[in-house]
């Protein structure tokens, strides 16, 4: 094979070159900084908020209960999670159709944590040029100190991130105490390190590679675009032919477009692409190139917006249609789902009953001609207050219920197991029959739930 025939993919085997995005200021970058602070602030602060006796947001896996402020969710409420996921997916469709990869640029954890790691890097190692110089410099005391400091800060930040993550699943104040005493349990230690390590590697080293190679959204998002989707684009008609020029020179006379070919847009790009080559799937829509180009345009005295948010129709000189059937349909679907979700979650049945037959005996024949079956009745009280429950059963004539007390008290957010004996006069049935247990609170709210079970009797 000759040189010329070498496949273009040959570079596949080359080691990856690190990208040093240049720092840039501008309106979109300010917006992104706000987003980072809002999202990470929420993430790091939320587990510390208290709600009465307990942590406000706690996914208590050992107890199989999720606490979210006043709400307590049980495994039986699992479908709410599915519902939430559907809403999230629709929201993603909506925002993608509206303005491309808004999620990538402003909200994706990958971007948000990478951004923070970049800040730390810049703070310790300086600007893009300084960083590159440092990387090329021979090993020296200063290099060692700076690199060491950066890795240490990254490590500490990642560890804190992992700790916070686990703090959503075990009470965080206890966890903090255990952490300083080096007495965290094996799984706690493991998950802190696992999540912290993932943050460290993803945000410190892999960065844009995650978006390029690992993220499914990056690949299919373009399917949700249409010609009215706002995307970050370079106005080729206006910019080309690009070329350097002296300040004040008449570009028109030289036949040049507005792009001065300063490559600043490439230097600021965290994924290392050239937006002037058109929309590429590597672009995470961080809008850094918009801010960078605007700054340059301002300096050379051209109108801003050579790189901007625009739709394909807009670029072709047609009208922009942000409100269109597609966005309207998505928006109304989301609104309906959220309203439905809010209604169901506030109106869900806060009591439930679970009936399991005693496995030791099918039935017992009592002296006096009665057949007895024993059940384990589990009463769930998901409400915020304690309730007294009455247990009844029906399905067979003459069914008697006995659980040794007139009612059962179940505390807020608790489960109570009750051994219940059901008795039926021998002549009433042969074989078996379906029965229903009903639990009812003895207060004016009269919360009710029913559970099905089977009553077994001799076949003769």
């Amino acid at each position: 094979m000759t040189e010329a025939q070498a496949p273009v993919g040959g570079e596949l085997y080359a080691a990856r070159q690190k990208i040093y995005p240049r720092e840039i200021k501008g309106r979109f970058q300010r917006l992104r900084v706000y987003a980072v602070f809002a999202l990470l602030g929420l993430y790091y602060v939320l587990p510390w908020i208290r709600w009465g006796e307990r942590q406000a947001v706690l996914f208590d896996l050992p107890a199989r209960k999720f606490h979210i402020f006043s709400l307590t969710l049980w495994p039986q409420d699992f479908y709410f999670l599915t519902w939430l996921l559907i809403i999230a997916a629709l929201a993603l469709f909506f925002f993608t159709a509206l303005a491309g990869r808004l999620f990538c640029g402003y909200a994706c954890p990958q971007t948000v944590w990478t951004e923070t790691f970049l800040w730390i890097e810049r703070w310790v190692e300086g600007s893009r040029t300084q960083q590159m110089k440092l990387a090329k410099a021979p090993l020296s005391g200063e290099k060692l100190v700076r690199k060491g400091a950066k890795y240490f800060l990254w490590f500490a930040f990642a560890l804190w991130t992992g700790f916070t993550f686990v703090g959503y699943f075990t009470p965080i104040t206890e966890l903090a105490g255990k952490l300083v005493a080096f007495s965290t349990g094996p799984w706690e230690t493991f998950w802190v390190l696992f999540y912290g390590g993932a943050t460290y590697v993803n945000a410190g080293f892999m960065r844009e590679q995650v978006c390029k190679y690992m993220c499914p959204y990056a690949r299919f998002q373009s399917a949700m675009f249409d010609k009215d989707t706002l995307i970050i684009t370079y106005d080729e008609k206006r910019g080309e032919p690009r070329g350097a020029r002296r300040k004040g020179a008449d570009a028109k006379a030289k036949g040049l477009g507005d792009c001065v070919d300063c490559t600043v847009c490439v230097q600021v790009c965290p994924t290392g692409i050239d937006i002037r080559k058109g929309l590429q799937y590597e672009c995470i829509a961080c809008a850094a190139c918009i801010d960078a180009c605007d700054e340059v345009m301002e300096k050379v005295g051209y109108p801003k917006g050579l790189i901007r948010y625009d739709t394909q129709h807009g670029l072709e000189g047609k009208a922009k249609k942000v409100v269109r059937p597609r966005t309207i349909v998505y928006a109304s679907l989301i609104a309906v789902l959220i309203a439905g979700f809010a209604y169901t979650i506030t109106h869900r049945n806060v009591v439930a009953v679970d009936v399991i037959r005693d496995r030791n005996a099918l039935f017992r024949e009592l002296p006096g001609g009665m057949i007895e079956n024993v059940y384990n009745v589990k009463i769930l009280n998901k409400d915020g207050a304690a309730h007294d429950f009455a247990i009844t059963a029906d399905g067979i004539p003459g069914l008697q219920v006995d659980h040794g007390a007139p009612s059962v008290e179940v505390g807020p957010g608790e489960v109570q197991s009750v051994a219940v004996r059901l008795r039926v006069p021998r002549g009433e049935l042969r074989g078996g029959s379906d029965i229903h247990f009903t639990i009812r609170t003895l207060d004016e709210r009269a919360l009710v739930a029913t559970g099905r079970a089977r009553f077994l009797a001799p076949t003769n």
Partner: protein
Amino acid sequence: MRQAPEEYTGKLRWPRLGQDVAVVAWPSFLVASVATMVCFGFIDPVLVGNDDYPPPAFQTRMTGYAVGFFFFWLIAALSSLMTLYLVRTAHPEPADEGTDDGTRSPE
């Protein structure tokens, strides 16, 4: 001062092995997370198995969840790995093998 954009051309990709590890480990991680949630949303790990002899790994819920998660991750990773292997070792479409003059290179 201008920086030549050349610094960025060509070497921005990962080595092949890195890509392979990423496309196997990451999607299976996502799938395993979902599978773990769904599975343990319905099943309480301490109730798994014989009542009298629960498998030792499931004696505490946290261990049960973790074992479940890694089990799902492993299974999903195996599937991803096999898919990757099949895709990587498939012969390319004849059209891709064609050279500019329309002849096909011998195998």
